[in-house]
Each structure stands twice: as structure tokens, then as C-alpha cells.
């Protein structure tokens, strides 16, 4: 029976079977909506039409052969239907008949697309805490308090920059739960470390406990905010800022009345506490930690190699940059530059417009990357690319400087109006110095985004060294140091960002 139904014959496909069976049992037309077998292309031209997309974009005949086989066409069908000996020969014939006309691929989603509100919100988030400082300065007394603050800012910047680097690196590996766990552990450890440093500093300069707590609050806010920003929870950060910012604003508006001191402290304290609490809750949730009563779970302990030594080392340039950048920002303020007229003009610029301008910097960073990606896709020659990329860099820098200058002017006008400061033309060099520092920070940010972290760190360290060495020269020294930094970073950025390989991503 089998031998009769399934005769072994050379001109039949191996496996025999239904190819061999007699007259069709069923009329194909009876199948509802079934594609009739007659629809299979009858000759090679029809087949070419059916596979036009494949043939037009094929890099060689083997690609067509792959597509034909994937579609179920085999050597047997090539022989019986198209009269060629196998799929490869059929594919070669199709490759010959259809000219290459590959379509452009779908444009990939632009990773540098940025909403207009995102960077503005970030700028606001960086700038808003500035309002807390004038409110607090009335509460903090003595030079010792300032010293503690001068330690607190660079220390917390360093830790937060390092932590942000580690967090983003982990997120880049699509390991969100591990990233959240790392951020939570890093935040806890970071606050503890800064607290230790601050305690030592406070004891050394015999500062008031209030100064210690204010410094600790700054660190807690910075680290909590870092965790929330890395986890893209900007809205929670707005909630965090609300009590401190609104409280400080009200306190300042009322003319810092003494009977509201406690209320002001409470409002100021609420922000860092909220920052830590919400950051811990958010990170804990994303890390999938079981909730515990009391909430202070100790993550990281017992977790499988939460952080390797190599990872920690890789975060050092970022942490170092945070330290030095904060140093560049607060050192001139700390030593009270430039003189009796505008001692606080610098403070205002350093704290508010520069922070706000980082929003503009962020937007321009995306703008620059979008532009250069477009250039890379539109250019065929390295020299032409280098020239255009450098021009784009200059455009980005000029736009940043214009935005920062505008913000500075606006902030100074507002502060003068509020009688917080009394600017004088002698403040000009320091204003210019801060503007140059802003430009340098923008370039450093840009270079870091391209993976260059060592050069900006060294350049900023040298500039800070100059500022310290030239502290006797007043604002002039700061201006020279910052301008030099801007020029050096701009030169380096122009050099490396003109290279096509740097824009690979």
C-alpha cells in the first residue's frame, strides 16, 4: 500500500507524499477567502514583481535566495515552476533582472529630540534652591557658618556627580532595578560621608550646629535630587522643592521677621527630608525592594556585587569634576571678592542665573548633537564635516553665552529692585568672569556628553589653582582664570568634536 501510494522516484521530491496523490479531492475554489494556488507567480518576471522590494535592496543574489527560501520556495519549486535548477540560480537571475534601487530606511527615532519644557524645567529645578540661601543667611551667623557651607557644596556636588554617572551608566545597560538599587545605596552612603566631612569641618572651625545642619540639608537635597533626576522623576522634585522655596520666598517677602525664624527653619528642613524620603521611596519601588515598616531598609548589603571597584574608579573623574566645578563657583564668593561695593553681586550671579542657564546648556547640548548627527548623515568628506561641526559648536557656545548674559542681567535687575544688592560698574569683571565660567561649564558638559571627562577635569582644576594662587588680584584674577578656561575648553572641543568618529553613537 505504501509502496503504491508513495512510489520512490527520482523526479519526485524526496519525502514523496501528497505531491503524488491523484486527482484533487477538493476544489480549491471551495476554500473561503483562501488564496488560490494559481496565485503563486507563474514565471520569473512575476516572481520578480512579487519580490521587487527584496530584489531592489539586495546586496547580492544570496540575499534574494534567503528571502525566497524564507518564503517557503525551495529547489523543487524552482525546478518545476521556473525551470531553473535551484533557488540560487533563480536568485541570480532575479538579481540580474531587477536593478538595484534600495529605499532609504525608516528614519530612526531621534535620540536627541528634546521637549522645549524639559530643559526649562531642569533649569528651574537647578535655580530654585538659590532662593533658600538668602533666607538662610539671616539664620546662619558668623564666618564659621560660611566655611561649613563652602565645604558642604563641593562635597555634595562631588558625590552627586559621581552618583549620577554611576546611575546613568547602569541605566545605559538597561538594568533599571539595579540602577535604582545602586542610587539608593549611593545616596545613603553619600549623605553619611558628607555628614562626616561636615562634622569634622564644623568642629574644626567651631561653627554653630545650625550651620552643620544647613550644610547637611544642602547635601541631602543634592543627593535626593540627583536620584530623582536620574530616575526621570522631575515632578517629584518639584514637590520636594515646594516647602523650602515657598517658605523662603514668603520669609524674604515679609522682611525676615524674627518670630518666624522657626517656621522658616522648618520649611527649609522639609525640603531635604522630602528629597531623601521621596528619592528613597521611588528608588526602592523601582528596585523592587520589599516594603518594610519604618522604611529604612539597607539596600546593597548582601546584594550581588552592587558595585565593582572598576565602576567606582570610573566614576572618579565625574566626582572630581563636581568638586572642582563647585570650587570654581563658590571660591570667589567664599573669599568675598571683589570688594565693598559688590560683595554680593557675585553671590547672586553664582547662585541664580548660572544655575538657570544650565537649563539652556542642556537644551543646546541636544541641539548640538541633533545638528551634528544631521551633518554626519549629509556629509561625505571628513574635512567638510570638521568645518561644519566646528561652526555648529561656535553657534551653540554663542547661544549659550547670550542666554546666560540675558539671565544674569535679568537676575541682577531683579535683585537690585529688591534692594538685595547695589551693583556698581566695578562688578563688571566678576560678572564677565562668571559668564565665562558658565560658558566653560557648558563646554565641559558637552565634552562629558561625548565621553571626554579627563580633559575638562584637568582644565578646571588648573583654573581653580590659578584662582587660588591669584586670590590677591581680586576679580581680575578670577576673570583671567575663567576666560583662560573657556578658551582652552573651546579650543579642545573644536579640535575633538570636529572628528567624525566622536559623533558615532
Amino acid at each position, binding site marked *: 500500500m505504501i509502496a503504491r501510494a508513495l512510489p520512490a522516484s527520482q523526479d519526485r521530491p524526496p519525502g514523496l507524499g501528497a505531491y503524488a496523490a491523484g486527482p484533487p479531492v477538493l476544489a*480549491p475554489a471551495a476554500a473561503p477567502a483562501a488564496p488560490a494556488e494559481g496565485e503563486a507567480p507563474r514565471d520569473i518576471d512575476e516572481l520578480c514583481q512579487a519580490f521587487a522590494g527584496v530584489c531592489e535592496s539586495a546586496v547580492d543574489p544570496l540575499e534574494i535566495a534567503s528571502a525566497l527560501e524564507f518564503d517557503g520556495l525551495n529547489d523543487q519549486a524552482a525546478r518545476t515552476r521556473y525551470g531553473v535548477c535551484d533557488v*540560487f540560480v533563480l536568485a541570480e537571475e532575479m538579481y540580474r533582472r531587477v536593478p538595484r534601487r*534600495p529605499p532609504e530606511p525608516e528614519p530612526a527615532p531621534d535620540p536627541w529630540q528634546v521637549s522645549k519644557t524639559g530643559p526649562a524645567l531642569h533649569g528651574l529645578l537647578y535655580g530654585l534652591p538659590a532662593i533658600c540661601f538668602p533666607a538662610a543667611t539671616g539664620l546662619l551667623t558668623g564666618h564659621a557658618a560660611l566655611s561649613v557651607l563652602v565645604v558642604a557644596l563641593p562635597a555634595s556636588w562631588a558625590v552627586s556627580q559621581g552618583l549620577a554617572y554611576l546611575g546613568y551608566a547602569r541605566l545605559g545597560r538597561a538594568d533599571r532595578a539595579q540602577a535604582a538599587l545602586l542610587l539608593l545605596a549611593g545616596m545613603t552612603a553619600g549623605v553619611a560621608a558628607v555628614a562626616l566631612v561636615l562634622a569634622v569641618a564644623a568642629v574644626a572651625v567651631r561653627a554653630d550646629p545650625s550651620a552643620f545642619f544647613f550644610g547637611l540639608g544642602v547635601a541631602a537635597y543634592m543627593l535626593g535630587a540627583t536620584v530623582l533626576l536620574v530616575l526621570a522623576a522631575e515632578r517629584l522634585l518639584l514637590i520636594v522643592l515646594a516647602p523650602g522655596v515657598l517658605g523662603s520666598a514668603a520669609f524674604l517677602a515679609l522682611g525676615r521677621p524674627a518670630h518666624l525664624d522657626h517656621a522658616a527653619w522648618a520649611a527649609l528642613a522639609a525640603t531635604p527630608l522630602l528629597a531623601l524620603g521621596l528619592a528613597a521611596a521611588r528608588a526602592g519601588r523601582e528596585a523592587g525592594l520589599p516594603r518594610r515598616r519604618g522604611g529604612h531598609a539597607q539596600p546593597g548589603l548582601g546584594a550581588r556585587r552592587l558595585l565593582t571597584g572598576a565602576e567606582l574608579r570610573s566614576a572618579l573623574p565625574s566626582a572630581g569634576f563636581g568638586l572642582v566645578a563647585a570650587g570654581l563657583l563658590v571660591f570667589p564668593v567664599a573669599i568675598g571678592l571683589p570688594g565693598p561695593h559688590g560683595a554680593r553681586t557675585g553671590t547672586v550671579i553664582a547662585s541664580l542665573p548660572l544655575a538657570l542657564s544650565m537649563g539652556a546648556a542642556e537644551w543646546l547640548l541636544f541641539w548640538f548633537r541633533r545638528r551634528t548627527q544631521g551633518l554626519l548623515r549629509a556629509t561625505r568628506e571628513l574635512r567638510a564635516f570638521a568645518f561644519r561641526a566646528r561652526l555648529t559648536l561656535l553657534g551653540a557656545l554663542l547661544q549659550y553665552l547670550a542666554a546666560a548674559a540675558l539671565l544674569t542681567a535679568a537676575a541682577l535687575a531683579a535683585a537690585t529692585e529688591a534692594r538685595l544688592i547695589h551693583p556698581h560698574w566695578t562688578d563688571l569683571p566678576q560678572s564677565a568672569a562668571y559668564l565665562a565660567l558658565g560658558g566653560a561649564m557648558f563646554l565641559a558638559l558637552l565634552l562629558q556628553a561625548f565621553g571626554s571627562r579627563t580633559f575638562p577635569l584637568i582644565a578646571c582644576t588648573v583654573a581653580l589653582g590659578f584662582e587660588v594662587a591669584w586670590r590677591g588680584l581680586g576679580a581680575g584674577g578670577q576673570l583671567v582664570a575663567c576666560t583662560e578656561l573657556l578658551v582652552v575648553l573651546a579650543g579642545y572641543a573644536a579640535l575633538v568634536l570636529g572628528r*567624525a*568618529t566622536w559623533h558615532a553613537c
Partner: protein
Amino acid sequence: MMTEGTYPCGFGGVSVWCDQLIRGMPGYDFHLVAIVATEAEQVVWTLPGNVTSVERVLLWGAPPPGPAAGRRPGLPLRLLRQLIDVLLDSPWRAQPLFADTLRELFDYAQHGNLSTGLASEKAVRLLSDAWRARWQDPVQPAPTLHDAVTALQLLDHSLRPLSHRPVPADVGHAVTNGLGVLPALAAKWQHGVPMLVTEHGVYLREQYLQHRKGPYRWPVKAFHLGFMRRLCALGYSEAETITPGNVYNRRWEERLGAAPRRIRTVYNGVDPANFPALDGEPEAPTISWVGRVDPIKDLETLLRAFALVSRELPGARLRLFGVPPKGRESYLQRCRALAADLGITAVATFEGRVENIRDAYDAGSIFVLSSVSEGFPYSLIEAMTCGRTCVATDVGGVTEAVGDTGLVVPPRSPARMAEACLTLLRDDGLRHRLGAAARARALENFTVDSAISTFDEIYSFLGSGRPLLIPAPPADEQPGDLLPGSAAG
């Protein structure tokens, strides 16, 4: 043993195969070189005791650390230019030089940093100049700098395995062609280790299909596929022995220059203890299917075929076991909608995941495979081992598996499939005879033990440096004829 994206860091058919093989050969020690995409792919299998070490080769991590930056010699400009020329020139002319170039790259990568060389402005300039010199066709999209940078990046990541130090062994067994043979080639060049290449699918064909979905512009696609094509051809020509998982695939291997006498087909096998003969059949005439619910399985043809069967045999049932892969559930929806359109929802049921796969074979009077593309499907030989008669589409190694113990129909042909199903469902005697023949055929040819003993033989031949005697294939290339069992029907 060299793998890519499979054992011991991933799951799937090839990983199961590797695990079976290693466990089945306790007399051999295995050093595993697993090529994986990123650090995230860790070892997920419990390794047998005869695996002495595992080395993971990361394609997308940071480049492997080399000597201190200042002491590294730069990638010679000549070699870079030669590499680019060899990849852009016509494959027939370039193939011999490709082998030399790759070997020189390997020698360089052992003490220099290949990634730095390929990511340099110099390399981008060479590639874009070479493209400009060759690009005469105004119709085709001209390559941009972005294409050059992207193409070199792909090449850099593809060549990462060359930077790892090869391990001396008696045999280098690459369980895939393509990137998986790079460590095997390195071991051959460095230590003279003989090379064995096993392919379950056809690596190069999968690369072509992958790039059809891929995001790259034509010049990048052509460049990368050009590299893969030359690499696969080199893998075939440098291997002492090639063991495809079915005879159909050897067409590709020979097409790319593999010597026929070095090719020996070794079929996948199942453990007969897991698939004893089934007693009895379901009461209603039932067709069962099991697999991943995916367009490649062409369930639409099966549903249409069953609609025809159902008209002739109103009591017939179709039971489909399996779930769609994550994130691609839309195909299941489409199939359900088609079943509704055909008016067969009452008799054709989607059963979802099945705990014991044997239950899926038990559920049907016959087993049907409707795929448009297959290598050597496990489900088919499992059903055969259980003694179920199969109707299967003529793709990949299916005809070799079924032989004359079932019915093979052209793919995408509901009428032919329906006709075959009806023949078997109506004729109890034929169905039972073929079922018994299928089991006998599977037990003789497609068991784990027979696969393992074949590899045992190949290993000992290669390890002893003796030439492996592969019986010359018959002049007639009919795949089924290579099987000892196929003449027995």
C-alpha cells in the same frame, strides 16, 4: 566548544543540543567560549562536571584591555587599507586575501588594540575614500560619513573575538558559523587546533534575513553582509569537518565553497525515553499542532486547510498548542480572527501553553507542521518518536526527517495540506502503519545517542590528527537518499 548567543548564556534549541552533547560525552573535557552581546548575558545553565572552564567574549562591552596605551603599536595603515579593499572587492576575487587579512588582524589584535584602530579617523577616511572611488552608480544611495562610522563600528564589534587569547585544545568545535568560528580560527592559527563547524540553521542566511529588518542604509548593510559572507566562506573552507543539522543546508555550505567530502550531516536527536509510543487515539479525528505562534509557522494555511477538512469530515477537530513570543501577540489575534471568518471556532481551538509536550502529540490523530521555514524541527521528530503520523510542509530538513513515513506537502498550500490530512484521517490502516514506521525511523536515526556517538567518532578522529573518512555523498544530491532509513519504506 564555541557558541554565539546560545549555550551556556541563553536558552533555546541550540542550547539544549549543546547541553545534551556535553553531558553525553563525559569522556571529554570542554572549554566553552561563549560569544555574547553584553555583560548582562550571564551563564544560566547548570554546567556539567566535564566543563572545565567558561570564557565569555563580549561583543558590545568596552574593548578588552590591552597593554598600556603608549606602548600599543597602531593598526598599520596598510592592513586597514587591505581589509577595506578585501571587503569591497568582488567576493570571488577577495576570498583568498580575506583569509590572510583576517589572520594578520588576529596577530595584531593579540598585542594591539584593534578597536582603537577601527574607530580612528584614519579608518573612516580610508573607507569613505574607497567608497567614493568605487561608487559609480548614481541610482544607489551614496555612502555618507555616518555610514562609514557605522560600518566600521559594526566591524569592530564583530571582530572582538580576535582580541581574546585562544586556548589550546584537541578539537575546536564551533556550534555555529560566522562570529562563532573566529575563536576557532584563532585557536587553529595559534595552536593548530583542528576545526569542526556545526550549523543548525544557515548562519549566513539568517544574517541576510536579519538585515532585511535592520535599521542600516544600503552601503552599511552591503559592507557588513560582505564581511559575514567572507567570514562564513572562510569558516567552511578552514573547517576540517562541517556537520549541518540537515542535508538541505549543505546546499548553502557547498555554494560558499565547502568541500563536499568534509560535510557530514548529523541530525538532531530526542531521548526516546521522553517520548514513548502513544497508546490509542482521540475519539474524534483530530489534527494537532505545537509550536511558537509566529508567522513563520504559517498557521493561516493550517486553519484554511482545516476549514476544508472540516467540510468533508464534519466531526474533525484541530487543536493548536503553544503561545506567541512576548510582544508579538498580534499574530495570534490574526489567527483567531481568521478562524472566526472561516466559521471553525467551535472545532479549531487555541489551547495555549502545554505542560508536557507529549500531551500535544497525544491530543491528535495526526500531527501537522505548516511552517514556511524550518531547520530540522524537534517537534516533528518528537511526534514521530511518539508514533504519530505527520503531515508537514516541504521546507528545510523536513523531508529528511519524515522520509516516507508521512506526507509532505508544498508550503502555503491549504488545498494540498487538506488533501493529505483527509487521506490520513480517513484511512486508519495507512495512518497506523505510517505512525509505526515513523517511530521506527526516528528510533533508528534521530536519537540523542546516535548524534552523540557520531560526534564521539568525529572528535576522536580530529583529535588524533587522522583524516576523517566521510563517505562520499552519492552523485545524486537527493537529500532523502543519504539516509539509511529512507530506502526501507
